[in-house]
């Protein structure tokens, strides 16, 4: 049985590696690859966070804000609370992932141009 915790913890990295692999940039351990992967991961995280926030009602944003500013933030609880209120949450995330992937593929295209 696979260790699902490891799978889930590595989700952003897995997805980011996949984006680079799609472009023919294989997983590596050199500094340049690590920098690229880091940037791609940051783009995915930032876009997911922004677009999810942008799609919330002001009340829902306020709940996230309250959690973020609390002494003991619990982002997992915050996102689960949001997910329970949005029936198409997973589809929404899928669409955001798809968009950011398209954007990154275009932005990184100079790397594979001859």
């Amino acid at each position, binding site marked *: 049985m696979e260790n*699902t915790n490891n*799978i*889930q913890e590595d*989700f*952003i990295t*897995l*997805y980011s590696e996949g984006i680079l*692999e*799609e*472009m*023919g*940039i*294989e*997983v590596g*351990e*050199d500094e*340049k690859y690590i920098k*690229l992967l880091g*940037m791609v991961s*940051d*783009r995915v*995280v*930032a*876009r*997911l*966070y*922004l677009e999810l926030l*942008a*799609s919330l*009602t*002001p009340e*829902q*944003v*306020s709940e*996230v*804000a309250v959690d973020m*500013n609390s002494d003991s*933030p619990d*982002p*997992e*609880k*915050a*996102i*689960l609370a949001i997910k329970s209120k*949005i029936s*198409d949450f*997973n*589809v*929404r*995330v*899928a*669409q955001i*992932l*798809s*968009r950011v*992937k398209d954007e*990154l593929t275009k932005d990184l295209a*100079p790397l*594979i141009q*001859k």
Partner: protein
Amino acid sequence: MSEVPKSSTEIRKVPSKSELLTRTSREVGLYRNKNIEVLLSKLETGTLDNFDGELVKLLEATLKEGNYKKTLLAVVVPYFERLTGAVAPTITGIWGGFRIADAGKEFADSYVKEDVVNKGRRLLDFLMLNETGLFDVEGDDWIETLQGWFNEVKIWLAERTNKVVRQFGGALVEGMASSVGFTAGWISYPFAAVGGYLGTSFLVGGGIGVAREMKKSSGFEQIAEYVERSERMVNEDVRSEDGTDPRHDLIVLHGRIAEDPNRLGHKLKNEDWLRLSAAVRNARVSILREKTQVPEIIMSKEVRDVLGRQAELIDRLVESGGEIANEDLVMATEIISQYDGALDRDTSAVERRFINYNSAYAKTIRYSQAFVREGIRGTGIPLVVKTVGKLLNISSRLGVPGTGILRRNKK
């Protein structure tokens, strides 16, 4: 000696496989599997549902080798390709590439594992041992059995992918998945708005429409003009009449409004401010992305070799990409800051934003990572990524030869 499965046809003892497969080249040249002939003739009359001439010939070619697993794979994989051809482009949007071979192999493995009594192997026995046409096959039972076997492949694939789709999309998507495959457009299905007034479309270039909305707000027309011109530059490369870049005009205006205690006389509601900020974010990102287009990159004169140029390009892309990520986080900070505490729709929220801006931004950087990486764990999406990845695989192209880009083998 082997036996053929029972059917309405006469059952005979037939030569062993080794005898059948040992033949002169002349015999091979003249040989035609009689069952394959029947299949092909059936195709001409249009009475086969699950396969065409190409698949039948593939079946014939692999039967001669006598390798059941190979035959299963050789036939099932193209069949999977045909079944999933309509949805592969849609799935590609997220997972990239549909590795049919993996799905086909998984199916074939499950059949081979279930061993001899499996219907597929019996069928292949039957087809293979009839190579010499030493006995007549009466009736079409075996054809029905063959079609039934392909139907099982189809059902297996549909059930497997529907399970993944339902897990991934939840209730909304379930209604869209048909019994055989799923609607090709499921991934672009428009979700119902839950009240987010910014709307995702604005952030991905739908700004011109938003500018019109802003114009309806009293006292906002002048700002809306700046937004509209900037968005035209972002989306359509249309400059101002005097040839200047309207994106810079908007960025400057935004900064001046933010710094002035009186907001330059503009009465801004929370939504108006956020739309303005989103347009500024679009403008900044647009400018950043232009910086890394190949013709715009001015390479150092000292960097002449391919690897050197590549290293510089990577640095620029990493820097630019990082700044774009920052722009997203700045925008996210603005959204959060508007609702820090009690709901407040007057401009005092804007003032609170600037008092706390730096700390709010710093918190956003930290919180966003945890929110996405840790928080998303509870959604089940990562597990679906892995499951879908096994079935659909995040395929990697082999890359463009000769570019020398970061080519390393995964350890």
